[in-house]
């Protein structure tokens, strides 16, 4: 690389690097430091170094454990449902006349801000006038206080996540299906494969990397769930729908201003997310996709 090329390469990358050093690295480092202190914004002389106490406290805090539990629940219930439904819908509309219109309409839920979704849910699942109870009344089911009981409130949050993000999984798989060459499927059928075998041996192997990508992105995002909870259940009743992110918010901001403890919780969430993001980058084959891998 010539000297002038190197100069411009560095000059152009500098703004990003300086920006991230100030706005991301510095906050992250200060968060790791604060996680070893008892900093509390309501207490003027807090901020002493207390070692790993905040981290040990997490394991004795039933609220922290239950919020990690609920986040895990969103991951292992909502995400698989989204994956299966996304796959089914992709097959359902493929080849139908008007599939582009259906695809576009199906995009809408994932564009709606989570907080607006929350408002809709407040109305639809309202005990007194909600449409959900109205539909159930046709089946002879008594009105349900959806947001008032732990299990139904958890159902509502998971249901909302499914409504919003199934379209995302659908889009990825649908695009993958479009890229499977039709001759390949025809060839398999000529060789005597039935529809199911063609799917299993021809389409599924092509889709597999995409399914992984969708799965990892969904897991990373499911850990961030916040707006819908804030707007519908506020983590309740009790702590039934308090997610990991929501609990950090409660500890760090809305109730306690307990920055030290919230930082410890956030550091763990950050580590989990970073691992997942790195797995994602591997699966995306980013180096090749962006033309910067070492081979080229």
């Amino acid at each position, binding site marked *: 690389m010539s000297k002038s090329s190197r100069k411009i390469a560095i000059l152009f990358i500098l703004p990003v690097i300086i920006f991230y050093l100030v706005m991301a690295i510095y906050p992250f480092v200060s968060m790791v430091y604060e996680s070893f202190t008892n*900093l509390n914004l309501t207490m003027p002389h807090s901020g002493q170094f207390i070692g790993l106490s905040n981290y040990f406290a997490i394991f004795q805090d039933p609220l922290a454990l239950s919020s990690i539990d609920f986040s895990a629940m969103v991951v292992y219930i909502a995400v698989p449902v989204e994956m299966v439904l996304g796959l089914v*819908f992709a097959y359902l*509309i493929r080849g139908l006349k008007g599939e582009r219109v259906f695809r*576009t309409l199906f995009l*809408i839920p994932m564009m709606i801000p989570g907080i607006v979704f929350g408002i809709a849910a407040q109305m639809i699942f309202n005990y007194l006038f909600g449409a959900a109870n109205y539909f159930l009344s046709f089946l002879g089911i008594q009105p349900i206080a959806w947001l008032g009981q732990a299990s139904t409130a958890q159902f509502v949050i998971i249901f909302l996540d499914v409504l919003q993000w199934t379209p995302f999984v659908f889009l990825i798989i649908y695009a993958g299906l479009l890229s499977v060459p039709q001759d390949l499927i025809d060839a398999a059928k000529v060789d005597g494969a039935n529809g199911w075998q063609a799917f299993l041996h021809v389409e599924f192997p092509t889709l597999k990397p995409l399914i992984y990508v969708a799965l990892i992105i969904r897991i990373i995002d499911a850990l961030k769930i916040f707006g819908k909870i804030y707007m519908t259940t506020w983590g309740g009743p009790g702590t039934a729908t308090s997610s990991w992110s929501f609990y950090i918010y409660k500890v760090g901001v809305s109730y306690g201003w307990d*920055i030290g403890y919230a930082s410890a919780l956030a550091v763990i969430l950050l580590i989990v997310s970073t691992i997942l993001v790195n797995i994602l980058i591997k699966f995306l084959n*980013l180096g090749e996709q962006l033309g910067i891998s*070492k081979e080229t």
Partner: protein
Amino acid sequence: MRPKTKRRIINTIRYIFTILILVVFLFPAYWITITAFKPSSEWNQWPPHFWPYHPTLSNFFGGNSVSSIEGILPFLRNSLVVSTAVAVIAAVIALLAAYSIARFKTGGMGLAGWIISMRMLPPVTIVIPLYVIYAKVNLLNTWTGLILIYLVPAIALGVWILITFINQIPKELDEAAKIDGASNLQTFTHIILPLSLSGFAAVMVLTFIQTWSEFLLATILTSNSAAQTLPVYLGRFITGYNIAWGALSAAGLITMLPVIVFGIIFQRYLIRGLTFGAVKY
């Protein structure tokens, strides 16, 4: 049964299921939209009205700030200012970085991966330390404070999209320009810049949408109408027992409408951006 008849029956069943599924998935958006035009007598009617029997605009222009969204203007202004600023600044910084990475492989995979991972990290992890920092440097409840933090994911998204755009510009053009005696800077301004304008626009739209919808950071880092954005305005609307559902829905409609319209128009880029290029339409 003849195969043709069989296919027709199967297709009919597929249409029925497709439409049923769309009805379920679009129901929340539909409910927000109709409630925004319902008069207060219909907000909590039983059985619920599935369309406004007496449509009204009173939720938008009701003359007071409790049962209508008369007070929405400052929040709308804040959302527009913050989202537009983020869109422009992110696109500029990202274009420079993307040029450097795409053409000169600056920093290699390590740097690219690091920048892109900024897009995926949970916002709640950055907001806790940032609150403490902002309190010290007086950035709480300001446009600047919001713009700075929103640039973190926005630039990451922008760098990623623009690298793919710049990669599509043939390198021969750069080389031809160089042979004609152009400097690197001239190559950038005369070849890369004009040819990546559509990518530049895509980044602006996507980062605008992303910023417009953000709630968690905004609700923590702002405290009144000087800087609060629309999603925060929505959150503050629910107070007491008598919630003004119509007004709340009207505000919700105004919050989601630009995102949906922009999103549908630019769906190609939206999908690419959201899936990190795993999907190309």
